[in-house]
């Protein structure tokens, strides 16, 4: 009997890869190893509807019927190691599982700074359903919450907690919120929105200690300020889970290093999602921590594992909901070139583009999903545009996608 394809990690990447393998016609054995107790679910809602209690559990990645139609052998355990010579996965119970190909979709874990007090009670991080449930139980109106780290998850948690009636303070070590995700200018705009909702934001706030035992009571900054609090959420980034890949000898560098096909440095072993440092279309490679990119990578890696041609450098694409705004981004808004705003700058709903060398390199939409659908295509096409024309809302955005169609519309 031929050995199965073994997928390590039953989150978004693992499940989407299983779906893609079946869709591509693979009818051999398929093993999905996951260490979380609940059925595979979508993580983005953990910081939003699940945390607020609007949804008791996160949305499932696929229905029970669809999951059973995938004919997957689900193993609820942790993969302990990979033996690349025998191409097998060692499980925590000592079993060795031979594979024709191994896909690592092991995700990322919350980064925990090395500070006194990070292990105290009432200090949380947010990656899993279990994390969200534990934090949700403590989000009571009137309590004080300190969010360490003003990135996407930190700002989402602040939004949810502030709407639930907590007093929220975000401590960001850098000069602006969301700089990595949105760039400083949009980060500034989002900070104003959060502040208008009553969230206190401290920038350049370097935490040196979480005080209080057994439970946290204050966060101490380098300038000796003490921020008194009931709860602390640590959201200072994620670390790709590379342990078993690295131990097997796969090249890792802030993620399991892969080609645009999902291949690692070891024949027969592939990696996707937050665990993988995947090549970017604009050059370089990194873990993208993005739902949409992980889905795309799962499709690509599934094809690669079946020996079909596949290579897809990624353009980072994500969405978030902060301070009541739906924000969608494609590409990196930081970087060279100029930012062009459409719909006037800093109105409630607008688009921001980064233009570099006359072409659209990145786009963000604030409460403008319909326009974002077009903006994304402009980024994908690296469309050449005139900045003044792009800012002019009297011309349809679609026109930049299909210049011929646009001139026909205007006549």
């Amino acid at each position, binding site marked *: 009997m031929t050995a199965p394809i073994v997928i390590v990690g039953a989150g978004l990447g693992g499940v989407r890869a299983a*779906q893609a393998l079946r869709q591509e016609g693979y009818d051999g054995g398929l093993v999905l190893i996951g260490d979380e107790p609940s059925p595979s679910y979508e993580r983005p809602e953990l910081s939003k509807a699940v945390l607020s209690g609007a949804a008791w559990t996160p949305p*499932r990645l696929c229905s029970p019927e669809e999951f059973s139609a995938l004919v997957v052998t689900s193993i609820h355990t942790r993969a302990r190691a990979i033996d690349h010579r025998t191409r097998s996965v060692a499980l925590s119970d000592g079993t060795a599982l031979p594979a024709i190909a191994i896909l690592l979709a092991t995700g990322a874990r919350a980064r925990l700074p090395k500070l006194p007090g990070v292990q105290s009670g009432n200090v949380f991080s947010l990656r899993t359903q279990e994390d969200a449930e534990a934090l949700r139980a403590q989000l009571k109106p009137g309590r004080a919450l300190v969010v360490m780290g003003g990135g996407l998850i930190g700002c989402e948690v602040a939004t949810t907690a502030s709407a639930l009636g907590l007093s929220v303070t975000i401590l960001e070590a850098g000069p602006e919120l969301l700089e990595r995700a949105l760039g400083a200018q949009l980060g500034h705009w989002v900070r104003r929105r959060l502040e208008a909702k009553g969230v206190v934001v401290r920038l350049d706030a370097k935490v040196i200690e979480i005080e209080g035992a057994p439970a946290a009571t204050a966060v101490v900054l380098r300038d000796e300020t003490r921020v008194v609090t009931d709860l602390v959420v640590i959201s200072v980034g994620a670390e790709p889970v590379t342990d078993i890949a690295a131990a097997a000898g796969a090249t890792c560098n802030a993620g399991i290093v892969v080609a645009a096909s999902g291949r690692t440095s070891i024949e027969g072993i592939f990696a996707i999602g937050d665990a993988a440092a995947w090549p970017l279309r604009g050059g370089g490679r990194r873990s993208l921590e993005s739902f*949409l990119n992980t*889905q795309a990578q799962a499709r690509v890696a599934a094809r690669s594992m079946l020996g079909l041609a596949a290579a897809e450098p990624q353009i980072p694409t994500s969405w978030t909901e902060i301070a009541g705004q739906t924000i969608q981004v494609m590409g990196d808004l930081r970087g060279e070139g100029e930012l062009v705003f459409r719909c006037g700058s800093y109105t409630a709903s607008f688009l921001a583009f980064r233009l570099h060398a006359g072409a659209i390199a990145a786009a963000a939409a604030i409460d403008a999903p*319909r326009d*974002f*659908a*077009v903006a994304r295509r402009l980024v994908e096409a690296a469309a050449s545009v005139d900045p003044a024309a792009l800012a002019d809302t009297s011309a349809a955005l679609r026109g930049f996608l299909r210049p011929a169609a646009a001139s026909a519309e205007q006549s």
Partner: protein
Amino acid sequence: MAFVTVCQVSDVAPGEGRRIDVGPEPVALFNVDGEFHAIEDTCPHGDWSLADGYLDDGIVECSLHMAKFCVRTGRICALPAPRAVKVFPVQVQGSNVLIDLDDGRLR
């Protein structure tokens, strides 16, 4: 079978969609190069109006999380769609577009 007039042909330009809110559930009406098709409007993934989506070649992409559906058959064309969407019968009579808003079905 109860077809009702929901709008005029000229209300929905080719390549565009329109949300129809008069029936028991919202319906998304699309004009695919002069041909009209209707599907359930609420994306089963993210609770978002598909009429607000991006229509290309008879396939609508939800503008929130990019699930895609065929507007003719309701079938899934891209994840994260968790299921197909219902299709509603459409008729064009003169300048009127009619939909049987009670007869949405999974194909």
